[in-house]
C-alpha cells in the first residue's frame, strides 16, 4: 500500500546536522555524533540531487553534470563546514561561500532551499520569468547568493578581495572563512590564475579554493580540450597549499577536510582538488559532456532519474520509496507566460 507523501516536507526524515549553523565544531571519527553527521550529509546530498533534477525539469533548463558532481561537497559544506544564518543571510559574522561555476547553481539553489533561505516550492520556478532563481545566480534577488555571476573566472578574484577585506576588519573577524568552488574547465580562464597569484601574494589563509575536478567541460573533456595537469603542482607553485581528495564524493573525506580547513591555517590559501565524476549518480550523465548543459526533456525521463537516485542512495539511506515517486509526480514543466505571435521557436538546450 502506498502512502501519500508530500515531497516538499523533508523535515520528517532529514534536518540540518547542526542546531546552530552559526557555529562550527569539529566532529572527528571518534566522536559519538560522527556517524550521524555522515548519514545526515549523505541524505542531504541525495536530497540536493533529487531536487536538482526536479527543478531543472520544471525549468527545461540547467546543468546537471556540474550540479551532480558538486552535490556531496555542497552537502558537507552547508551541513558541517560553513557558518551562516539562513534567517539572516547578511549576518556580518558569516563565512562567505561563492559558487564560481555559476551554471551549476541548481544544486546550490536546492541546498539553500533545504536550509531555509527560501521555500523549497520556489524551486519549481527556477529559470521562469519573474522568479528570483535565475539561470545564473543574481545576488540582488536570491538570498544566500554572495555575488552575481555566470561569466567564468571572475569570482575567484572577488573571493580574494573578500578575504582581504575580512582580514582588514581585524581580530573580531579573524575566524571567518571564504570558500569558493571553481570548475575545472573554469581554470582555463587566465583571471583564475590572476586570483591565485594575488591570494598567494597576500597569504590569505582565510581563503579556500575548491576545484570540482570532474574532468568534463561543456563540450568535451578537460584532458583533451585544455588540460590542467599537473594541477596540484601548479597550485603549489602559485603559493597555495594544495590538498587533493582522491574521492570528492566521499562524505567522510569531505568532513575530515572541513575539520581542518578553518582551524589549520598556515599563512597560505588552501586549494582543494576534489576528484569527482561529472554527473555523479545518474548513469547516463556520468562523465558525459552531453549532459553538461541540458535538462531531462520530460517528466518521465526525470522520474527515471529520480528513481535511479533513490536506488543508488535513497534506499540505503532509508528514504521512503514514495518520496522519489511523489517528487517525480510533482514535476510541472513551467510554460512561458506569453504567446509569441511570430511563432519563433527555440529548442531546449
Amino acid at each position, binding site marked *: 500500500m502506498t502512502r501519500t507523501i508530500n515531497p516538499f516536507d523533508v523535515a520528517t526524515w532529514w534536518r540540518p546536522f547542526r542546531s546552530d549553523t552559526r557555529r562550527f565544531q569539529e566532529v572527528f571519527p571518534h566522536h559519538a555524533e560522527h556517524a550521524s553527521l555522515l548519514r545526515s550529509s549523505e541524505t542531504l546530498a541525495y536530497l540536493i540531487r533529487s531536487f536538482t533534477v526536479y527543478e531543472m525539469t520544471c525549468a527545461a533548463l540547467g546543468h546537471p553534470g556540474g550540479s551532480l558532481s558538486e552535490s556531496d561537497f555542497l552537502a558537507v559544506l552547508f551541513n558541517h563546514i560553513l557558518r551562516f544564518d539562513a534567517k539572516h543571510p547578511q549576518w556580518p559574522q558569516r563565512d*562567505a561561500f561563492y559558487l564560481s561555476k555559476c551554471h551549476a547553481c541548481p544544486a546550490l539553489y536546492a541546498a539553500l532551499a533545504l536550509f531555509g533561505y527560501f521555500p523549497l516550492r520556489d524551486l519549481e520556478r527556477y529559470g521562469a520569468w519573474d522568479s528570483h532563481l535565475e539561470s545564473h545566480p*543574481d*545576488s*540582488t534577488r536570491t538570498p544566500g547568493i*554572495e*555575488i*552575481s*555571476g*555566470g*561569466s567564468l*573566472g*571572475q*569570482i*575567484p*578574484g*572577488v*573571493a*580574494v*578581495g*573578500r*578575504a*582581504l*577585506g*575580512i582580514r*582588514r*576588519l581585524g581580530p573580531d573577524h579573524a575566524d571567518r572563512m571564504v570558500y569558493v568552488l571553481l570548475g575545472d574547465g573554469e581554470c582555463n580562464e*587566465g*583571471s583564475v590564475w*590572476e*586570483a591565485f*597569484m*594575488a591570494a598567494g*601574494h597576500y597569504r590569505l589563509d582565510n581563503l579556500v579554493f575548491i576545484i570540482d575536478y570532474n574532468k568534463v567541460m561543456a563540450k568535451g573533456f578537460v584532458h583533451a580540450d585544455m588540460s590542467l595537469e599537473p594541477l596540484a603542482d601548479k597550485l603549489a607553485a602559485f603559493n597555495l597549499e594544495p590538498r587533493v581528495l582522491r574521492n570528492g564524493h566521499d562524505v567522510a573525506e569531505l568532513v575530515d577536510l572541513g575539520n581542518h580547513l578553518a582551524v589549520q591555517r598556515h599563512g597560505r590559501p588552501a586549494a582543494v582538488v576534489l576528484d569527482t565524476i561529472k554527473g555523479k549518480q545518474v548513469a547516463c550523465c556520468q562523465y558525459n559532456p552531453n549532459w553538461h548543459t541540458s535538462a531531462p526533456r520530460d517528466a518521465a525521463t526525470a522520474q527515471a532519474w529520480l528513481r535511479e537516485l533513490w536506488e543508488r542512495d535513497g534506499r540505503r539511506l532509508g528514504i521512503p520509496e514514495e518520496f522519489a515517486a511523489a517528487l517525480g509526480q510533482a514535476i510541472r514543466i513551467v510554460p512561458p507566460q506569453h504567446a509569441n505571435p511570430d511563432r519563433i521557436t527555440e529548442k531546449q538546450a
Partner: protein
Amino acid sequence: MAQFTIPPREATQEMRYQMGYALADLAFEFPQIVALDGDLRTSSGLHIFEHFHPDKLLKAGIAEQNMISMAAGLSQEGFIPFPCTFDAFCRRFMDQLYVSVAYSHANVKVLGAYPGLYTGKAGATHQSDKELGLLLRIPNLRVIEPGCHLEMRQALRVAVETPGPFYFRIVRCEVAENELAAGYQFRLGRGVTVLDNGCDVGLVSTSLMVKTAKLAAAKLERKGIRVRLDHHPSLKPFDRDLLYDLAARTPAIVTLENHCTSGGLFSLVAEALAAKGAPVRVGAIGTDPDDFIHTGHVNDLMARYRMTSDDVVRKVEEMLAKP
C-alpha cells in the same frame, strides 16, 4: 626620477594629481575608502593617495580583471574601493565590471585614468575614445566625466555617499579649478547651463571640453552668434530634461566630447532628441569612431580630429549657414 615625486597640491593643475589629493582627503573622512592600483600609481595620481594612506593602497599587479573582481569582494565587507588603471584598459575588465560589479550592484568606484586623447603620446593602444560605447550601456553603472577640479572633487564625494557602482573618467592634462559658476555644486544625473546669452546655437559639452566650448562661445559671440552652453558631467544618468529645454530654444546643437562621435555624448544627445522628435540639427565634435588614434602630440591630434575651439566655430557657422 621626476615622475616619482609628489607634486605639491597648489603647484599642479593636472586633474590626475588633484584626484590623488581629493581621494586622500576623502579617505581621512571616510575610513572605508581603499584604492587598488594596477601598477600605474605614479601615472594615475594614486601615488599621492598612497603617500597619505600607505596601508590603504592595495596593489593588484598588472592584472586588471582581477583588480576589479577584488574591488567587488572588498566592497562586500563594507569597504569603498577605488580601483584605478588607464581608461583604455577598461576594455580588459569590461566583463568583470558588467557582471561582478554592475549586475551585483557592488559599491565600487572605478577610476579611469588617461581618458580620450590626453595620454602623453601613448598611442593607439592607450588612447581611449571608444569605451563609452559600452560603459554607458551597463545597467546600474553611473558614468561621470568631470571638467574641472571642483567638479571632480564634488563628484568623488557624491560617489562615496551614493551606494552602487560608479565609473569616472579622470583626464591627465591640466584643467582649471573651476570652469563653472561660483558656488557650483555637482549633482548626479544633472547637467548645468554654463552660459546663456541667447540660443542662436546650443553647445553641449562634457569633460574638459567645457573649456573648449567656453572659448568657442566667446569667439562666436564676437561674430554676433549668441550661445547657450550646457555642460553634462553626468553621462549616466544623463540629464535629458536640460537637453530638451535647450532643444526647444535653439535650431542647432553641437556636442563636444573627449571621445569619438559614436557611443558617447553625441549618441546620448542624438538618441534623446530622436526619441523626442525634436526638430533640431546636431553636429558633433570628437574623434573618428573608425580610427585608431595614432601617436602624436595632443595638439596634432586635436588638429587632426578638428576638436579646437576654432573648429567648433567653423562647425557652428556651417550648420547655421545650411537652409
